[in-house]
């Protein structure tokens, strides 16, 4: 998933009160500066693995490796927990939903690293690289990216209506 992450992160931030209430941690308001900052940062965090690749510190295969594991999600949650439990829960959920959103990609997610190298994928669309114009263009030549990412934008609009946010206020 590429542009769809944007809509999905927005949708997750809209559910911040429900997520924090379900986890029994202090409530965070929907689409508050706090929820937006935590969710967007955490949701995009796995894709920051492109930075060491661009800096030539890692090979292309580093993309969708350790940053896309359950251990990474748990680690981020555990690091944040002593500072702010609500942030920890929101970050953990955002990371898990990032993995769900990427599960359709043929690159597969090594969710169980370092315990297993098995990659999990629904093979809905072919992965064509981690960044660049070609990766973007070729991704949107495939049907399921439109279905899944488009659905995220519809979901975001539905949340705007439910929360009475412009243009549904």
């Amino acid at each position: 998933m590429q542009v769809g992450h944007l809509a999905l992160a927005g949708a997750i931030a809209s559910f911040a009160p429900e997520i924090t209430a379900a986890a029994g941690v202090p409530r965070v308001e929907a689409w508050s500066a706090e929820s937006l900052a935590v969710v967007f940062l955490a949701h995009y965090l796995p894709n920051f693995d492109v930075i060491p690749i661009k800096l030539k510190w890692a090979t292309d295969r580093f993309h969708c490796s350790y940053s896309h594991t359950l251990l990474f999600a748990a680690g981020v949650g555990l690091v944040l927990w002593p500072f702010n439990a609500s942030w920890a829960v929101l970050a953990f959920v955002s990371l898990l939903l990032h993995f769900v959103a990427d599960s359709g990609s043929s690159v597969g997610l090594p969710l169980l690293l370092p315990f297993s190298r098995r990659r999990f994928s629904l093979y809905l669309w072919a992965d064509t690289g981690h960044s660049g114009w070609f990766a973007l263009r070729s991704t949107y030549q495939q049907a399921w990216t439109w279905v899944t990412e488009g659905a995220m934008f519809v979901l975001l609009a539905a949340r705007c209506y439910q929360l009475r946010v412009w243009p549904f206020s």
Partner: protein
Amino acid sequence: MFTYRRTPYLGLVYAAAIGYAVTWLVATPDRPLTLVQQAIFYALSYLPGLGLAMLSDPASHRAKTEYLKVDFYAPKKTAGGD
């Protein structure tokens, strides 16, 4: 991007169905959607609608099949040969 000329138009049909279903699901009787708000829902529904239409278009399937043959993460060969 499309083999059939009908694909983007078929997407409009799917978008109408998705838009109707979503507005039916989320709209509450005390706060009916305005025409502009309905238009926004239908416009956004075109994104997944187009995807559903592309599922029956060979161009999308062909692109996926071709890209699956390529390893986009394989180490790049340098001029030096190593």
